[in-house]
């Protein structure tokens, strides 16, 4: 409907960057609009946005920072929504390490478990909740068996490089093409941790509100988008 | 033309106090023992030491209470006591450094002149570490000359050079000085070098000027320590009288008579200065015959003085209007009965012309 194709600048939390790249590619084909993606940690992107970074949309890895931006009036009213909900997995690149019920944590036959920083990464907070539910949070901390990644990527790297025996990571990271998962893993019960919801919003400073809204609308409603998100190991947020 | 100086500096226990006005023409020798402040004085004149002082060169104020002309605008040439070549240039680069910084019309020495003057032909592409000590010193001299300075400061420039090189370089340097009329302030320990080269002498002792004035008058002054040097002597003014090509001799008339010296390419009547070392002078009561000593002049004893070595005496003899120094043994002095006012014949074994 618009005369010229728009280019939207999107700030995206690093863990969703790959998925958003796929989404952008798909969206470009349906709308002609392109997305320029700037990734970083959620905290860093948040700081940049507060300092006037030239982004149109913000895809956070949590719900807290979008809420803050919203309350500070830096978001387009009503644009905040949950675009994906993550699933936590305890994973090892080697088969036979993690049992299907997560007993290994109690047995303690390992050197290190990697997890993201619970204070700034939602997956880290979730991992802490799971460990607390297992009654292992305190003991593992005491024994200094927890290595903390700055973000979920680093956490994955700790395990993937074999330096940590296993890691609490996002299911999206270990899901290969066709939904296959290599190595061994355990999916903690969803009841043991709060949903890992990731919120997005349109920034109030955007110069292309129409294009931004169009993309958001597509993302919330298109089944193709939902499909891509699901394949990446997330659950789509409520439409 | 004159160099006016007034400075006072203290470093630890050393202090330098100089007040004076020295004629800035020909060569002024700065003579003094090691550590008396010769280098420090040159540095002050060059503008390399920031200190309260008054330096006036030929009516241009270089430094006083209100102004300070920095070293690079004083148009000096400075041969440092250590050759101090630029390590990042070869010999040619070192030589050209100062040359390039003079406007072509202001250049008074060409690269070729300087190179041949100091015998650097084969060394032009050498880098400083590939030079011997004496070669480095020669490059430093040539470099200073090529800056066509209005005043040349030389701090023991020939100390690492052998006699033959010195004998080659000194006369050429003298000629160049006369041709270009660049006054030179020349630091040296060697009284021989000083006597050969200098017109004026400044005698430094422990940071103070002990005496300053024309070389001739200072050399024979009884109150100065110069007579005590191995190479003590006197300098006489004279005029070329005639030549004797057969024996390769020239005759020079001085106030006391006629002196023979090596043949010079100078016209009769030309005014010259000749140098006579005390050790070359002996005394006799009669003019000797049949001796190889060819210069004998009558004179009158002014006084006798004991030297550091008690076996020796230094006798000052008035010859015409000049004073000659003679070094004789105490025994000879006694045996010949030499006393003040007595008439004697001075026998001069060797007379050297000072290229003037």
């Amino acid at each position, binding site marked *: 409907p618009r005369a010229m194709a728009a280019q939207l*600048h999107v*700030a995206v939390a*690093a*863990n969703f*960057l*790959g998925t958003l*790249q796929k989404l952008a590619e798909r969206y470009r084909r349906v709308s002609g609009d392109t997305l*320029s*993606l*700037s*990734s*970083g940690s959620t905290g*860093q992107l948040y*700081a*940049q946005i507060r*300092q*006037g*970074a*030239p*982004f149109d949309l913000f895809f956070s890895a949590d719900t807290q920072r979008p809420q803050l931006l919203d309350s500070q009036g830096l978001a387009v009213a009503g644009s905040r929504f949950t675009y994906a909900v993550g699933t936590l997995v305890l994973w090892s690149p080697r088969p036979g390490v993690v049992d299907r019920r997560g007993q290994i944590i109690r047995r303690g036959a390992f050197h290190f478990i990697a997890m993201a920083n619970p204070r700034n990464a939602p997956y880290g907070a979730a991992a802490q909740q799971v460990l607390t539910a297992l009654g292992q949070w305190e003991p593992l901390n005491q024994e200094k068996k927890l290595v903390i990644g700055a973000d979920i*990527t680093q956490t*994955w*790297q700790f395990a993937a490089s074999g330096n940590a025996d296993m890691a609490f990571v996002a299911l999206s*990271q270990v899901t290969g093409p066709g939904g296959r998962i290599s190595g061994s893993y355990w999916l903690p019960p969803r009841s043991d941790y709060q949903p890992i919801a990731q919120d997005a919003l349109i920034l109030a400073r955007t110069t292309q509100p129409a294009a931004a809204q169009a993309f958001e609308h597509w993302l919330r409603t298109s089944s193709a988008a939902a499909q891509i998100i699901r394949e990446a190991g997330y659950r789509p947020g409520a439409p | 033309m004159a160099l006016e100086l007034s400075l006072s500096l203290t470093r630890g226990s050393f202090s330098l106090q100089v007040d004076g006005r020295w004629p800035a023409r020909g060569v002024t020798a700065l003579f003094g023992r090691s550590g008396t402040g010769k280098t420090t004085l040159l540095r002050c004149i*060059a*503008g*390399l030491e920031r200190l309260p002082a008054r330096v006036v060169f030929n009516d241009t104020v270089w430094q006083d209470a209100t102004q300070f002309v*920095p*070293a*690079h*605008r004083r*148009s*000096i*040439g*400075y041969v*440092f006591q*250590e050759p*101090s070549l*630029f*390590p*990042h240039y070869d010999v040619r680069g070192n030589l050209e*450094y*100062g040359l390039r*910084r*003079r406007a072509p019309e202001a250049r008074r020495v060409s690269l070729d002149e300087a190179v041949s003057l100091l015998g650097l032909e084969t060394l032009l592409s050498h*880098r*400083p*570490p590939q030079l011997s000590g004496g070669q480095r010193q020669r490059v430093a001299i040539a*470099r*200073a000359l090529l*800056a066509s300075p209005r005043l040349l*400061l030389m701090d023991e420039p020939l100390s690492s050079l052998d006699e033959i090189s010195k004998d080659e370089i000194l006369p050429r340097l003298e000629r160049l000085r006369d041709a270009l009329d660049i006054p030179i302030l020349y630091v040296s320990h060697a009284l021989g070098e000083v006597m050969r080269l200098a017109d004026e002498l400044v005698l430094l002792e422990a940071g103070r000027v002990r005496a300053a004035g024309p070389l001739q008058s200072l050399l024979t002054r009884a109150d100065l320590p110069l007579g005590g040097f191995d190479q003590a002597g006197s300098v006489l003014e004279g005029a070329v009288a005639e030549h004797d090509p057969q024996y390769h001799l020239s005759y020079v008339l001085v106030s006391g008579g006629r002196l023979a010296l090596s043949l010079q390419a100078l016209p009769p009547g030309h005014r010259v200065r000749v140098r006579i070392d005390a050790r070359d002078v002996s005394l006799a009561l009669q003019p000797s015959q049949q001796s190889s000593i060819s210069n004998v002049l009558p004179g009158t004893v002014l006084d006798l003085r004991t030297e550091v070595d008690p076996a020796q005496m230094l006798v000052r003899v008035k010859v015409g209007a000049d004073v000659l120094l003679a070094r004789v043994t105490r025994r000879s002095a006694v045996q010949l009965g030499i006393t003040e006012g007595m008439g004697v014949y001075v026998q001069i074994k060797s007379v050297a012309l000072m290229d003037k």
Partner: protein
Amino acid sequence: MGGDDLIALAISVRLAAVTTALLLLLCTPLAWWLGTGSSRWRAPVNAVVSLPLVLPPTVLGFYLLVFLGPQGPLGRALTLVGVASPAFSFTGLVIGSMIYSLPFVVQPLRDAFEGLGTRVLEVAATLSASPWDRFVSVVLPLSSRGFLTAAVLAFAHTLGEFGVVLMIGGNIPGRTQTASIAIFNHAETLEYGAANRLSATLVVIAFLLLLTVYASTRGRGARVQPWRWN
């Protein structure tokens, strides 16, 4: 290697070159003052020069962003005179990189200047060289080693810099996304093949560049320097 990577590589190289050039230019007077001056402010300034290193790059970048951003003191002043804040632009990257690499340039230069001694300068002065002339004809060539080290450290460090650049540049593809950020992005999206390729390219480019520099310059430096009369 994708086109984005090539662009990021080009931005990195350009950023490193611009940063290094500007730093050499600006730090030379500062280093000269530190190396040859006698002010009693030298010790504190020397200490301050090294401080950019002490903070984690992202944190430094954050403070810079606060300072330079539209709400920051400098950003606001700039906006008043009608200049855009340098945050999230190439200019911002250059400023950030310069601040962070400052010590790598100042310190080797200062050491080089301090080691020169006064004699060569005195000689040049007596040969009628003005202070500026002396600087060009004597100080520069005799401090070439220091300049080389300063340039190499600044260039290499800016190539690999990530935190400050990410923070102040905003990782905008084609504009402020440098190779180091691109590698990081590849790693984030688990494209380790691409990350490895880009890393390798960066390392190889840097190696070839440094090799050329050292093979040509070192030799000369070595010929000039081992000779000293001290």
